[in-house]
């Protein structure tokens, strides 16, 4: 295995922990609710997945636990912002701090619990494809879930009635209401499903790629997911590019070093952020979707 391949293998695996939460945040934001608490939802997802894996011995069941934990926190954010009219940014931060505190207390005992993480599954046939096969198709279950989610998201947003309703809620909730639907209900669902994705992203860290639980183990990657959605101007394909590029650049940081290539320390640390930004600027040249109207209103109303 050469360094280039390793960069991509690690990048896809690590990028999965960004791409799934980013798709979740996209769902949430399209409905008009930004969830800065994505970081917190990832964190409870990571611990939830780990705790359930320790209890059941199955990392696959653990992933479900992580998803539920994330969704519960998303539901809280939805309740605060939609029914209690709390400021979205503040509520998101509260969710994050709450998650930090709760996982800090409950997670203490899990640091020394070893688990068997999600196994690497080689897809027959596809993994034999020269070069790309081992990179894309010798990964764990959640990496494949990420691929499927991307395709599903593109389909839903472009072709389905659900996608239309979601976007309409984010643009003009009144219209959705007049058409006989419940914009609040749609938003609650979107935020909860989004947080569920964030929980799965956390699970990719704890019971997937990393395979251990650690205090604050998301280290700000949830915020990266939120930023990717903004810079990708709410387009799922661009979200995908941004998230994977970030993962690949993160992985490249290590691979460059093991090959003895000297790069300025600060430049190296800024690499994932810089490269992602440049990549998104390039893919966004053709103009993007405007911010969902309800979202712009929610954000500019902040005083």
């Amino acid at each position: 295995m050469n360094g280039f391949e390793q960069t991509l293998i690690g990048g896809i695996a690590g990028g999965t922990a960004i791409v799934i939460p980013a798709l979740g945040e996209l769902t949430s934001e399209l409905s008009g609710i930004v969830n800065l608490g994505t970081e917190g939802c990832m964190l409870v997802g990571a611990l939830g997945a780990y705790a359930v894996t320790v209890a059941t011995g199955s990392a696959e069941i653990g992933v479900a636990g992580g998803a539920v934990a994330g969704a519960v926190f998303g539901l809280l954010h939805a309740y605060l912002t939609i029914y209690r009219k709390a400021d979205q940014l503040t509520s998101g931060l509260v969710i994050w701090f709450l998650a930090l505190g709760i996982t800090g207390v409950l997670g203490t005992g899990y640091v020394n619990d070893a688990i068997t993480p999600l196994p690497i599954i080689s897809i027959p046939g596809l993994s034999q494809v020269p070069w790309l096969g081992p990179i894309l198709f010798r990964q764990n279950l959640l990496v494949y879930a990420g691929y499927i989610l991307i395709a599903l998201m593109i389909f839903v947003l472009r072709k389905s009635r659900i996608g239309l309703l979601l976007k309409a809620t984010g643009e003009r909730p009144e219209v959705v209401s007049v058409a006989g639907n419940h914009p609040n209900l749609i938003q609650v669902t979107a935020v909860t499903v989004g947080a569920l994705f964030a929980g799965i992203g956390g699970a990719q860290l704890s019971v997937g790629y990393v395979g251990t639980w650690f205090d604050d183990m998301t280290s700000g990657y949830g915020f990266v997911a939120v930023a990717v959605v903004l810079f990708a101007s709410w387009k799922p394909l661009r979200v995908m590019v941004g998230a994977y590029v970030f993962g690949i650049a993160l992985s490249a940081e290590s691979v460059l070093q093991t090959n003895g290539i000297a790069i300025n320390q600060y430049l190296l640390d800024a690499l994932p952020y810089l490269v992602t930004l440049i990549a998104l600027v390039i893919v966004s040249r053709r103009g993007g979707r405007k911010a969902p109207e309800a979202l712009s209103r929610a954000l500019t109303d902040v005083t």
Partner: protein
Amino acid sequence: MLKKLTFLKKRVLKLFATIGGTASLLVSLASCGTSTASASSSGSATTVGFIMVGSRSDYGYNQAVYVASQTVAAEMSNVKVITADNIPENSSVTQTMQAMVNQGAKIIFATSYGYFPYALKFAKSHPTITVLHQGEYLTGKFPGNFGTYWGEAFEPVSLGGMAAGSVTKTNKLGFVYAFPIPQTIDNIDAFELGAQSVNPKAKTYVVNTSNWCDPLKQTEAASALLAQGADVLSQHQDCQTAVIEAAKQAHAYVVGYHYDASSLDPSGWLTGSVWNWAPLYKSIISTILSGHFKGSKYNANFVGSFAAHDNPLVLAPFGPAVSSGMRSKILAEEAKLKAGASIFKGPIYCQNGQLLVPAGVTPTYAQINNFSCFVKGVVGTIPQG
């Protein structure tokens, strides 16, 4: 019931009062939830505070501190121990020190490298409080109520390097470290020199993560090293579980650091360097309580060593992969270090061939602490700031 409610209200109000602060403060607050001060004994006892940068159950640097603080509490009847973990290396530590003083603390152990400027400043402004800093080496004048302490960490690390050098098949060892500071550079150099002493072909590949604990980055670093062909991983970060897990999955070996984590990977664990702080903490506290701190060896840069039989960093138990022959060889080397030998005895060359230590010379701790190059045999460069 009402009393309970008022209490709860107070707690909630306190929580919100702090949420009004800065973002960094909030992080520390969230973690303060995990760091309930633990009182151990009461009466006319002297209160001693321990402040940690990470979680007290990190299976690494901070857990070693916490475990030792609890040993102090259990074994010193005239001492009451309070602890705070997850305190970031910024002004939060000053606030934590003040909070401990408000709780009656007379002695404070600030146990993270980055606490240094805050700890020194706090000592200067609080002459009645004795402040100890773990890890830094002060070159200036010491206030009478301040001291630093550490150990010649590179001694046991070099023994771990021997174990790594003896089992590697690929002659490639991987080392993940946080930041290029004297401590990490010395440890990497000692690890490689130890490995070379039993296997001249052994090379140490290094990756820095610019973070004391970021599991995802550690996993990327470990994966990159394993892909490069490394079959033994070691590390110098605050937390070590992600690197151990990566090695375990790849059936590679591990040399631990900070804390005995052999239970996480019993078959892959070779050995490691683990902190045994309690004897040093007890000695420092006793000196302060007896009133003889000022001018003592602890009112300076105290560095424990094998030779003085007071190194707080010791060799961890061996795992099954280290042969009995190699075990006795390592223990013999440990005995030599205890008799005054040094892993850094010259001649030692930097990667670029420059002479680091001339032949026959044994550098002092201060000189070792100034090493600014990786030795020959290390692959990777020291990142320039």
